[in-house]
C-alpha cells in the first residue's frame, strides 16, 4: 500500500519552474531519500508534501487522501528541520508537548507519550533543559523526539544531519536507520549527501533541475545509473567518463575504443548485448574508480576484465584506500586501489578494468545504454 503518491507535481515561482512534473510513490514503511545538488527542488518538494508550499499543479496523496489543499497540521505528518527549529523559549519537554497541546491531547496521555519517546531516544536527562543548553547532537534527538510523539503517517526529514560535525553525522545516521527499523514508519528524507541516501534509503529519488532523474533502490542507482548525471552524482570519487567508440574486434566481439597518449588506442571488450542497444558508434564509457585494479594473475585472464596500462599522475593515500589520478589519453581518470596494490607517481601502471560493471551512455541523450 502506498503511504505517499505524487503525480505530475509542478511548482513555479513566477516564471521560474522549480519542479517540472515529479512522480513518486512511497510504500508503507519505506525509507525514501530525495537526493540532489542544491537548487534541484528537493526541499521544495518536501515542503509541498508538508503543505508549507502551495501546489502549482499535480496531485499529492497521503494514504489515499488527496491533500493538495489540506493544512499542514491536518496532513498527519511530522517533520524534522535542518535547523532543528526547536522552540527556544520552551524546555525540551514543552517542545515535545507543544504539538499535542495544540491538538488537545489529554495531559496524562501527553506525559505517557513523552516518557516513551524520551526513553526511545535517550533524552530523559535533559527534558527540563532549554534547547540553547543542548549540544548539536542532543538538539537533533529532541527534534526527532518532537516528530515521534506525533505518531504520524509520514515522517519528513529536511537535511537533518547537515549541521552536525562529520563524526556525529555518521553516528546519527546509524541512529536514524536503527530508529526507522524499530518503528517502521514511512519516511521521506531530503539530503544532498549521496552517502546518506545510499546508506539509509530503501529507494532513492535522484533529482536535478526540478526533475526526478532516477527513482530506484540504492543498488540500481549506483550500478545502473539512468544517466550521466546520476552516475556522476552518486559515488565519491565520481564515475569516470570517457568518450569512446564501439568497434568490433577481429572475432566479431564488440569493444569500446578510445585513444591513449602516444598515439595508441585502448580497446576494451564489451559484454554481451550492450553494443546492440547503442544508437550510434559514439558512446560515453563510464567506469567507477573501484573498478580499476592493478593487473595480476588473478584478474588479467578473468572473464569480463580488460587490460590496459596508464601513466600515474597523482597518488592520494587516505589510509584505507589510495586514490590515483591516471592519464587515459588526454583525459584524467581516478582509480581507487587498496594500499598494497597502490601505484607510484610516474609509474606506467598495468590495469585490469572490470568491464562487467562498466556503463555505456548515449552522448546525445546522456542516458544509460
Amino acid at each position, binding site marked *: 500500500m502506498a503511504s505517499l503518491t505524487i503525480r505530475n507535481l509542478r511548482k513555479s515561482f513566477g516564471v521560474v519552474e522549480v519542479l517540472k512534473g515529479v512522480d513518486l510513490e512511497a510504500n508503507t514503511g519505506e525509507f525514501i531519500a530525495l537526493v540532489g545538488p542544491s537548487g534541484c527542488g528537493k526541499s521544495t518538494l518536501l515542503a509541498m508534501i508538508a503543505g508549507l508550499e502551495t501546489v502549482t499543479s499535480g496531485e499529492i496523496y497521503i494514504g489515499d487522501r488527496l491533500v493538495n489543499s489540506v493544512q499542514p*497540521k491536518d496532513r498527519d505528518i511530522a517533520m524534522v528541520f535542518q535547523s532543528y527549529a526547536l522552540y527556544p523559549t520552551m524546555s525540551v519537554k514543552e517542545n515535545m508537548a507543544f504539538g499535542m497541546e495544540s491538538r488537545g491531547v489529554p495531559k496524562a496521555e501527553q506525559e505517557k507519550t513523552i516518557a516513551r519517546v524520551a526513553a526511545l531516544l535517550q533524552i530523559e536527562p535533559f527534558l527540563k533543559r532549554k534547547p540553547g543548553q543542548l549540544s548539536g547532537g542532543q538538539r537533533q534527538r529532541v527534534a526527532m523526539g518532537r516528530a515521534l510523539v506525533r505518531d504520524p503517517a509520514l515522517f519528513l526529514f529536511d537535511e537533518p544531519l547537515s549541521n552536525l560535525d562529520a563524526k556525529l553525522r555518521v553516528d546519527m545516521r546509524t541512529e536514524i536507520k536503527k530508529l526507522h527499523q524499530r518503528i517502521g514508519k514511512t519516511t521521506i528524507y531530503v539530503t544532498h549527501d549521496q552517502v546518506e541516501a545510499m546508506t539509509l534509503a530503501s529507494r532513492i529519488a535522484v533529482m536535478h533541475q526540478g526533475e526526478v532523474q532516477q527513482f530506484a533502490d540504492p543498488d540500481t542507482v549506483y550500478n545502473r545509473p539512468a544517466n550521466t548525471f546520476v552516475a556522476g552524482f552518486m559515488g565519491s570519487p565520481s564515475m569516470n567518463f570517457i568518450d569512446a567508440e564501439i568497434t568490433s574486434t577481429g572475432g566479431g566481439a564488440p569493444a569500446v575504443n578510445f585513444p591513449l597518449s602516444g598515439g595508441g588506442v585502448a580497446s576494451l571488450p564489451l559484454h554481451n548485448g550492450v553494443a546492440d542497444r547503442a544508437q550510434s558508434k559514439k558512446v560515453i564509457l563510464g567506469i567507477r574508480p573501484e573498478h580499476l585494479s592493478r593487473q595480476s594473475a588473478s584478474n588479467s585472464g578473468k572473464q569480463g576484465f580488460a587490460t590496459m596500462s596508464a601513466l600515474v599522475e597523482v597518488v592520494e593515500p587516505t589510509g584505507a584506500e589510495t586514490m590515483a589520478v591516471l592519464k587515459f589519453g588526454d583525459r584524467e581518470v581516478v582509480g581507487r586501489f587498496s594500499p598494497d596494490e597502490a601505484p607510484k607517481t610516474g609509474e606506467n601502471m598495468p590495469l585490469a578494468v572490470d568491464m562487467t560493471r562498466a556503463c555505456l551512455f548515449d552522448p546525445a541523450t546522456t542516458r544509460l545504454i
Partner: protein
Amino acid sequence: MADAVLGATVVEDREAAVASRRRLISRIVIYGLLGLISVVYIVPLLVVVLNSFRTNAEIGAMGLISLPQSFRLDAWPQAWSDFCIGGQCNGVARYFWNSVAMVVPATIISTALGAINGYILSKWKFPGSEIVFGCMLLGVFMPGQIALLPWAFLLGKLGLANSVYGLVLVHCIQGLSFTTLFFRNYYVSIPDDLLKAARIDGAGFWRIFWKIMIPLSPPIIIVTVIWQFTGIWNEYLFGVVLNSGSNQPITSALVALSMSGTTVRTYDVMSAAVLIGALPPLLVYFFGGKYFVRGLTQGAIK
C-alpha cells in the same frame, strides 16, 4: 653579535616607551574630552536640581547659577499642588496625572499593535505587504506637525477634542510606524523554520504569536516601551495645540510657566515643577536603560 642583539633590544625599548607615552597622551585627551562633554551635559540638570532646593530670594541675590547657601524642600510640594499656572493655582499635579493617563494606555496600545503588525509583516507576508510596510515607514520620517490640523479636525469629529483620550488616540497612531518598524525588524531575524514547525504542530496565527513570538520578544518589548513612554511623555506640541486648560499634559502645562510673566518669577518652584515633569522618563531610563541598550544590540535567538 651579542652587542648587536643588545642594541636592538635597547632600540625596541625606546620605541616601546615612545609608543606607551603616545598612548597615555591619547588616553588623557580622550578622557578629558569625555569629561568636558559630560559636564556640559550635566550642568543644566545640576543647576535645576540645586535651584529647586534654594530659596527664591537666594536665587535672586546670587544668580541662577551658583552653589546653594541653604537647603529646603518647600518648593516641591508647592510645585505639586499650589503653584499657579495659567491662572489656576493647583500646582502641576493635575497635569502630571493627565500625562500618566495619556502615556500608559498609549504606550501599551501602540506597543501591542506594533507587535502584531511586525508579526504579520515579517511572518505572514501577503501580496503587497512590503508596500504596506513601506507606507508605514513613511510615518517614521514624517514630522508630527504635518498631522496637527488633520488631527484637530478628526478629534473634533470624533468628539475627542480637548480630552486626554484624544491624545491617547493621537499618540497610538503617531507611534505605530516606529513600533511596527521595531517589531518587524526584530521578528525578521527569527527563523521561519520555527513557524513552519509550529504550523505542522497544529498551531495557528494567534497560538504561534503568543507561545512562540511573544516569549522571544522581551528585548524588543522593553526597547519599544521605553521609546514610546519617553517619546509620548516628552511630546508637547500635540498637547499644547489639541488640548487646553486643565486637560493638558504636564509638558504643555510647563510651557505656560514661562508665560505667567505678570508675577515675580519663582525659580525655585519652577525648577521643582520642571523636575517633576522630567522625573518619569528619567526613572524609566534609569531602571530600563541597560535593557534598552541591550535590546537594541541584541539579535534574535538562533
